[in-house]
């Protein structure tokens, strides 16, 4: 093989950086899109249920029933927006979605309590969003159970034979953004890297500059690496950008090693950008290349990466397919680094997965790039 030349490599990288700098659309895509996506996804993809609009139909009208309603109000999960007078009002409110839950306290609630009999209360939940509904029911049951315990004990204490002392590790507050933001980095970088680099080689073909380039002694490795370098720089800036936005806006902790993050990010970025260049070299048309890059990265890295949906609970077929979705490995690595503070001793398998991805991406790009004009 001919020796590579640093002069030629540097000339390619510098030229590519100039292209990016002159292209406002690419610049916006490179820096504004990741920041916007983190904010959007960080707020939108949330499994935390807060302030569920709730109506209360208190038919008991006793201090006991008001205590129960207060327990719902003060728990933080429900926002009591209506006090109802009759059960005729329930159906229209739930139908129109004005409230998501209605708490019905029957007239003989206090009487049952006083008689130490079971005192049922009714929760009517809008099941249109099954996820929110089941979480609301769980919260409601917990509130009612704790209210019952207080009612029974009436200030006394009672030794309980066994009870759970639950403590959540790594994401103590069970915040969705702690889970989403680090993982989102993988999805954003996958889509963005492939999309940006999918333009580069196709652009040379479309503008007729490929012919001039191919007539020079530049080596195809120099072309691929040279084009890759500025995008690698952008990728690192984006990673830092996403981490900072995540830390500042969503208070996502960073507990691991920044060096290990950079090493895994580099492998992942090289793989994603190599894939983009492969698509670009094969498609030779910018429009087609961007479409292909979107198809190849968008859905797999959103749905089959474990970012939003747990891979372990998917059908086996999808689990097998997800093995070739590179974002899957980076999502695990990112969560490990950000939340658990673990390094290569735990994440070596993910690191190897991304190393394979980097090698495959580059290999495909170099193979597809031809200095021949047909």
């Amino acid at each position, binding site marked *: 093989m001919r020796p590579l030349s640093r002069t030629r490599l*540097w000339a390619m990288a*510098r030229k590519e950086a*100039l292209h990016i700098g002159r292209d406002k659309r690419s610049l916006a895509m490179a820096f504004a899109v990741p920041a916007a996506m983190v904010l959007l996804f960080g707020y939108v993809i949330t499994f935390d249920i807060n302030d569920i609009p709730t109506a209360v139909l208190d038919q008991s009208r006793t201090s006991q029933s008001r205590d129960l309603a207060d327990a719902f109000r003060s728990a933080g999960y429900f926002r009591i927006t209506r006090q109802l007078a009759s059960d005729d009002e329930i159906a229209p409110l739930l139908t129109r979605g004005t409230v998501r839950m209605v708490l019905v306290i029957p007239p003989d609630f206090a009487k049952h309590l006083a008689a130490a009999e079971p005192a049922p209360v009714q929760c009517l939940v809008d099941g249109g969003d099954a996820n929110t509904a089941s979480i609301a029911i769980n919260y409601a049951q917990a509130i009612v159970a704790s209210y019952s315990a207080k009612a029974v004990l009436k200030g006394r204490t009672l030794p309980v034979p066994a009870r759970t002392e639950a403590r959540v590790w790594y994401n103590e507050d069970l915040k969705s953004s702690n889970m989403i933001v680090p993982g989102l980095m993988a999805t954003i970088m996958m889509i963005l890297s492939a999309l940006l680099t999918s333009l580069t080689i196709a652009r040379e073909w479309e503008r007729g*500059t490929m012919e*001039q380039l*191919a007539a020079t002694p530049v*080596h195809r490795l120099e072309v691929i690496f040279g084009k890759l370098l500025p995008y690698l720089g952008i990728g690192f800036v984006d990673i830092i950008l996403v981490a900072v936005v995540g830390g500042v806006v969503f208070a996502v902790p960073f507990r691991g090693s920044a060096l290990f993050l950079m090493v895994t990010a580099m492998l992942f970025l090289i793989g994603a950008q190599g894939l983009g260049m492969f698509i670009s070299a094969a498609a030779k048309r910018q429009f087609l290349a961007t479409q292909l890059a979107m198809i190849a990265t968008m859905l797999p890295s959103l749905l089959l990466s474990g970012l939003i949906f747990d891979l372990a609970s998917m059908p086996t077929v999808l689990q097998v397919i997800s093995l070739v979705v590179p974002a899957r490995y980076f999502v695990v690595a990112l969560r490990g680094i950000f939340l658990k503070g673990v390094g290569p001793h735990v994440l070596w398998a993910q690191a190897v997965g991304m190393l394979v991805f980097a090698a495959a991406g580059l290999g495909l790009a170099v193979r597809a790039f031809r200095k021949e004009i047909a």
Partner: protein
Amino acid sequence: MSDATRTGPTGGGAALTPSPYPLTPSLSCAVEVQDLTKKFGDFMAVDSVTFTVEPGEIFGFLGPNGAGKTTTIRMLIGLLQPTAGEACVAGLDVRTSTEAVKQRIGYMSQLFSLYGDLTVDENITFFAGLYGVRGERLEARRAWVLRMAGLEQHHDQLTAELSLGWKQRLALGCAVLHEPPILFLDEPTSGVDPVSRRNFWELIYSLADAGTTVLVSTHYMEEAEYCHRLALMNRGRLIALDTPANVRRLMKEPLLEIVTPDGPAVAQALQGAPGVAEAAMFGRAVHVAVEDAGAAATALPAFLASRGLPVERIHTIPPSLEDVFVALVRREGGAVAG
């Protein structure tokens, strides 16, 4: 002409087998080509072309679009692999030393192929980098290119904003940054106004005077006159190869120009008329190759008048390269039809 009269392995099938006489690269030739052939599927783009180019020569490829000029040049600079045949450029086999050839040549394609979103300076720096030109040599070459192209005042301007003539001179400059001994220009002046074209050819001459070998393709006949030697190409075949003066002498028959308001009808009527070898439209006139100029000058106006076709003027003219080209293509076409 029948197939039997052809010399060498130029027949369709034979052309695809490698030459039995491999070239020994000779440093005395800038470019040496033997039986070079390129097929795209069933289409014979370049059909067994053989020629040599001497150092310092301006060697022109002349022919219509699709004649195989661009394909020939692309094979010589390593952008296309030949289907068959041999080609040496700067003493190197283009098939085995492709990248080494690229370091020794400059190339300018027919479409503007610099980066429009880069400035003049940035384009120069980029191509210099690819050819390994840097440091003091880069600055010296940059100054030379800017002066040569007349772009000293515009070195900071985006290339896309330059006029076409300037773009082409800059492209030429970028192609010779590394001072290659051989320069390939594929229709470098297409779409440029005549004044810019003249200026461009002065640059080509100054490069050739400095010892650069220039291979240039064109479909402008008047540009072909500027070349030291011409290769006339049609349908992938080399139909003539000589100096412009000698190529013009290939046309044996005297030529008459008939100025008439009804050119198409006159050209039509003269096909196969007595004493006429061929007649073709040239702009608003009809060029007629005849056996005897004196006899035809009196016979043809009468012949046309009898058919109700008016003749404004008829006179003898020296054949242009275009006339020769038309005549040779007709002859070639006849041979193919057999």
